[in-house]
Structure formats: C-alpha cells, structure tokens
C-alpha cells in the first residue's frame, strides 16, 4: 500500500505540491490525471525518492521514503520502476545498453541480461532496434525503450509518467495490455500518470485528479467518469455541444447488464434522438460506457423519468457543461 500524507513540495518560491493525500492499494492500477503543470510528475518523483519534499510522509508498504539511508534507498528504488516523461535515455548508448543498465548495476549475469532484453524488446515491439543508438530512435521507439528499461528489475511498484503519450494507438494498446498483464500476474502496483482518458478508463481501477498541487477528486474510475466532478470537467474542458433552443442533451451511462437501453428507450417512448457524443470503451466486466444524446425538449422529462424508473444513471449536460448555440 502506498500512503501519502500531507505531502508538500516547493521549487524555490513556487509551491508545487500543496498537501497531497493519497492511498493506493497494493496490486492496483492507479491513474493520476490533471492539467499540465499540476504537479503530477513531481508527485511521482517524490514517491520514488528522486525528489526531496518539504513536509508530509510517503509510505510505500512499510517503507517511509523520507527516512531511508543511501543503501536502503537504492534497494527501494530497485523495486520501484519508473518510466520518465522525457524518456531519459543515454543518447550515446545503444538500446541494448540502455535497457541493460539497471541489470548491470545490480550485477546480473550477462546471459540473464541478454535473455531479459530480448524478451522485453519483443514485448515493446522493437526487437530490430537492439543495436541502434538511442538518439537514432523515433519518439515512440524511445518511449518503448524507456518502458522496457523500467521493467527490467521486475519492480513491485511501477511509476509511469505519460508512458504511452508518444505511441500510436496499436502500440499503446499493446503496452496497456502488457501493464494489465504484469499487474494481474505479478500483482505489482502501477501508478499511471496520463493525459489520455482512454488509458485511464481502460486500465485504471482508481483515479485521482490533481489540480494545482492538490488532489481535487479521487475514486473509482467509474465513479469519477459518471459523477464527473468539477475537477474532471476542468480537465476535459467543455464539450462543444450545439443545442438549439428546443433541444436538450442527456448523458446516459450503461454497462453490460443494460446495454440495450438506448434502443429500448427509443422504442418504448416512441421517440427519436441523435447520438452526439459518448465514451464507449468496451462492454466487458464492469466498465461503464456513456452516450450523449440530443433530444427535443418536449421529450426530455419523459426520458428522465424512464431512466430513473429503469435505475439507469444519467445526467443532463446543459447548463453546467454545454454551450448553447443561439
């Protein structure tokens, strides 16, 4: 369990973290989102002990990160992999050397290193780049090397700072599958800082939203995305929904059990509406999807009643986060 209490951190005169409180269960995949400059990377670096902090405590399991001596810190970090936002690869070293570095530092045998690197490069999809220099890689290739490097030590905690931001959708999916897999199989705790909502929704059980150095919203991913706290709205911005005077827009949430709600709604109330937005991840397990419909004002009340009756979650988007046209 990772427990962060009242964490405060300043750079010179700027207070970047202003009392962060956070609890992350062992073996979970925890997402952290927030606007650019909110302090996400700083938070991750504090957890890892590569950045000192001013006040508060960080506990990872039994370990109080703030009070480790040099040697304890090394062992702690060995068990805490980190993927840096800017990759931080040795530009002059080859892909092999970059990935081998942690293992060499921990005196692994050459054979074991070779094997591990081959495996990891296969997993991240660039086995042919093994002898390329890091600075000869494309952005996404660099990122994948950084991911591979963070996985070498089979860490118990993995900190991912925008680990898929430079990747195409298919590679992103592959990496997320990989993360999900190591989480499930090895039970490692993963903290994912990301700007991609789809990443949060597809692999994180819990999400925290950092705003200006504090945690403004926290909860299960479903809860956050259905309840849409102000922090999330601030993060996502207003959807530009174009409504005329006599139109309403309603977001309807559904999951596996009630996935046919939309057609039923249309047929039972005998009305037509259009789908103007939505976040549909998948229908497996307990993920929650949403669809935004636009409907004639006169049907709005009926629809709401129907949804309440059917015990379906819904939210009217206007006026909070819709801009009315004309």
């Amino acid at each position, binding site marked *: 369990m990772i427990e962060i209490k009242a964490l405060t951190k300043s750079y010179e005169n700027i207070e970047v973290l202003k009392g962060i409180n956070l609890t992350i269960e062992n073996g979970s995949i925890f997402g952290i989102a927030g606007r650019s400059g909110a302090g996400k990377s700083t938070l991750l*670096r504090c957890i*890892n002990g*590569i950045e000192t902090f001013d006040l508060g405590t960080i506990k990872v399991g039994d370990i109080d990160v703030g009070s480790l001596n*040099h040697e304890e*810190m*090394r*062992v*702690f*970090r*060995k068990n*805490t*992999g*980190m993927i*840096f936002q*800017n990759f*931080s*690869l*040795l*530009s*002059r*070293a080859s892909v092999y*050397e970059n990935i081998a*570095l*942690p293992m*060499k*530092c*921990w005196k692994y045998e050459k054979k074991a290193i070779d094997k591990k690197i081959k495996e990891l490069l296969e997993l991240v999809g660039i086995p042919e780049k093994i002898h390329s220099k890091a600075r000869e890689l494309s952005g996404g290739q660099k990122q994948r090397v950084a991911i591979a*490097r*963070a996985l*070498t*030590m089979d860490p118990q905690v993995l900190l991912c700072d925008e680990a898929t931001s430079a990747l195409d959708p298919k590679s992103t999916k592959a990496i997320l599958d990989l993360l999900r897999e190591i989480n499930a199989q090895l039970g490692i705790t993963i903290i994912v800082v990301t700007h991609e909502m789809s990443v949060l929704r597809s692999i994180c059980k819990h999400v925290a939203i950092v705003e200006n150095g504090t945690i403004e919203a926290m909860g299960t991913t479903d809860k956050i995305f259905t309840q849409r706290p102000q922090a999330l709205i601030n993060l996502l911005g207003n959807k530009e929904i174009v409504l005329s005077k006599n139109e309403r827009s309603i977001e309807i949430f559904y999951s596996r059990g009630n996935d046919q709600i939309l057609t039923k709604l249309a047929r039972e109330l005998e009305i037509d509406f259009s789908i103007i937005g939505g976040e549909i991840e998948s229908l497996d397990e307990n993920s929650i999807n949403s669809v935004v419909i636009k409907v004639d004002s006169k049907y709005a009340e009926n629809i709401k009643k129907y949804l309440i009756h059917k015990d379906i979650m819904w939210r009217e988007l206007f006026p909070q986060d819709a801009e009315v046209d004309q």
Partner: protein
Amino acid sequence: MNGELIESILYYLQKLIIPSTFITIRMVLSTMIIGIAFGFVLAIFLTLYGPNGLNPKGRIYSLLNFLVNTIRSFPILILIVAMGPITRMIIGTTIGEKAIVVPLSIAATAFIARLLENSFLEVDKQLIEAARSFGANNLQIIFRVIMKESVPSIISIMTLATVNYISATTIAAAIGGGGLGAVALTYGFQSFNNTVLYMSVFILLLLVNITQFIGDLFYKKFL
C-alpha cells in the same frame, strides 16, 4: 652548400632528432598514462563530492579542489624542484627522462582532473536521476552514465592534454631529460643552431598533428 645542409640534416636527424623523438614519445606516453589514471580518479572524487556533485561533501571537495589548484599554480620548474624528494623516492634520481615524468604526471593529473570534472558536470541531470531511479549507486552513475555520455568529450580532453604535454616536455631540458623540446631549446635555440631548431619543431608539429588526427578519428568513431 645545399649538399652540406642535407648532410647536416641527416647528421642531426640520426644523432639527435630521432632518438629525441623516441624520448619525447616515451615521456609523453608515461606522463599521459599516469596523468590519465590519476586524473580520472581525482575527477571522480571531484564529481562525487563537488557542490553540484552526486554526494556533495564540502570539506573533502575543498581539500581536493585546493590540491588541484596548488599543483596548477606551481610554475612547472618549481614543481620539479618541490617534487624532487618524491621523485628521488620513486625513480631513484632527480634527473633524466624518467625523473621528469614524475612532476609532469602530477601536473597532468591536476590538469586532466579539472578538465574531466568540467566535462562530467555537463552531463544531463535527468540521466543521473534516471539512473538513481533504478538504484544505481554513485560510482555506477559515474562509470555507467556520466562517463558513457561523456565519451566524445573525454576523447577531446585526452587529445588536448596529450598535445599539451608534447610541448610541455620541453621542461625536461632543465633536468637533462632530453626529448625534442629540450633539443629545440638547448641544441637549437640556446646554441643558435637553426637547423636543429627547425627540425625538432617540425617533428613536434608532426607529433601534435598525428595526435590530433588520431584523437579526431576516435572522436568521430564514438560521437
């Protein structure tokens, strides 16, 4: 007239220049090998304990820094004198080709250490952080990250220092060490013998250019 010149060139070449060339090469190589070895060690400590270092330790750094400054502030001839007893202890004599290597390598150690320290400080702090993040210890960071990233810079420094000490071995003249610089100085300049002067300077120029050329080759290779 011309034939005479050629004859005298050949004479000096055989008697003076060629043997001195070997002496110079020997002196420079010894100086550089020792200077590089100790220079690296010293640079590592400076990088470790420096104010922007991996493990800042003001006291130790000040001491080492002062040591380097002290060596570098000594005019080389005075350094030769000051190091006399130590030179005798190590080499058994204070004159000749071997004896000059002691003060020269001490000077080279300080010079190279300072150059390396400067270059090591230039390595991207984020890389050091990344290495920390998987538990590399300070020495591993120095050897596997800082040095690795500094390879071209290290090569430049080695080249620069070698070139420096090729002409610096001239000071060997003071203690009868010989070598091209000494020949240029004593047999050439001080004996007003221009043939010898030009010849030895020409060979020095050649050695410097070869050194730079080899250095550049390595640089290109490891860029």
